[in-house]
């Protein structure tokens, strides 16, 4: 059950399953490796990378589906390792699988959590303003 009309997992997404809720919380501690090279690291839930969380209580298996920003992301294995480590620590979980979504769906900035997207834009506009840059579109008017 989600409180938002999205088809992927966001910070505001709510689950009836306690395990899924705990998994989501663990995923919120996994930082996107690329963003760690900036001054403002973003976790994979805020970034909109988590497409779905599945929980099989009969086998204790959690499956996390990720839609990466690029199908060529060379850091998938790093993200995979960290998810397995963090989610695997949960007491009811015996196995963790991470799948990359390859359905052809494309990640765009629209998938980011709204707060994160707004904060990112504000940082960019602040930097632009501090540099005294006028947009070309305004200059040419």
């Amino acid at each position, binding site marked *: 059950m989600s409180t938002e009309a999205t088809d992927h997992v966001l910070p505001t997404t709510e689950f009836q399953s306690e395990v899924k809720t705990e998994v989501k919380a663990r995923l919120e501690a996994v930082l996107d*490796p*690329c963003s760690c*090279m*900036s001054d403002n690291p973003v976790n994979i839930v805020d970034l909109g990378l988590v497409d779905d969380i599945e929980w099989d209580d009969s086998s204790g298996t959690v499956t996390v589906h990720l839609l990466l*920003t*690029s*199908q*060529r992301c*060379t*850091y998938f294995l790093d993200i995979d390792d960290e998810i397995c480590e963090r989610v695997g620590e949960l007491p009811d979980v015996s196995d963790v699988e991470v799948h990359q979504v390859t359905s052809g769906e*494309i990640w*765009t*900035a629209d998938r980011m959590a709204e707060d994160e997207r707004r904060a*990112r834009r504000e940082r*960019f506009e602040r*930097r*632009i303003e501090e*540099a005294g*840059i006028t*947009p*070309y*579109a305004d*200059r*040419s008017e």
Partner: protein
Amino acid sequence: MLENGELVVDAVSHCFNHADDNHLHPHAQRWDDETYELGEQLMPEEYVFPEEIFYRNHQPEELERLLFLESQIDYSVYHSLPLDDYFKDGYVSREKGFELRDRNPNRMGMIVDINPLEDDAVEQVEYYAKKKDVDGIKLYPSRYQNGRDLSLQLNEDTVRPVLEKAADLDIGTVGIHKFIPFATAPVKYFRIDDVEEAALAFPELNFEVIHAGFSFLEETVFAMASHDNVYANIENTAHMACSRPKKFARSLGEMLYWAGPDRIVFSSGATALHPQPAIDAIWNFEMPEDLRAGEDYPEVTQEDKEKILGKNKLRLMGKDPEQVKKDIKGDKWDQKIQELKETGEYPAPPWSTYEEPTEGASKERVKYV
């Protein structure tokens, strides 16, 4: 050439060597496979290479036919690549580029790769500028040597002498690979901060940041808006116009809004990608109404498209479009194009002009060779 008679200029073409016997490092196969997958992801199905066409040592005469008969490109700038840590010939050899330019002096430019870690890197810049009249140099932000990923940012001491020599010799363009990380290199090497510093330090050089718009978009438009000598080279990003139009719209929209249409240059990325679907998609592109209204992105005019697809790169190279048109009129490619036009077969079908007839290949493949 576009239907309205304006030139299509390709700011990056390569003649890749994907043959197994070119591999020097275990990661070489990964490079090959990721390059193939890139084409699968970015191009319409009918343009995706047959594997037997892709996994081989592409030849100069194949690239020139791909550019000039299978697409509307009139002029292309070959970039050799310095990946000799992974591939015996660097992946895209210098020799093939010079051969192509020698065969097509009015249609091909040359940007030569330089490895700043080589002892004679500065001398190489001088040699290629003075003796080979190159249009620029190509750098990579990272090298893999002796089991380690090494940083080669434009603001580092190792690279600075190369840029100083390029500036002294008025070499024009410095092409720098960015935005698409490769192999095991840390992603920080693919950010654009160092380009800003270099652009400020060397105002006489123009910096073409390759794959602009693919990632780090806000950083890119900030650099473009801050420095008049930073150009967005949209190799690979251009093909998002046909496969990821929304993402392309956002990349192009940000660039146009903040920096305008004069410093965006189209690249085909051939032979890794087929040029024509990107040319078609850009020429037919319209900024979605929701992005115009919601983000203030400007309408993309025909004049903007002509600049992106050709005029900007010619201006950057100091070439007069009308002179280029005169130079290529009636040459061997123009004659073949006219023949194809007469039968309604221009541009020729994808990969139809490649040398080797292969199983499953269309009859047309043999026809144009």
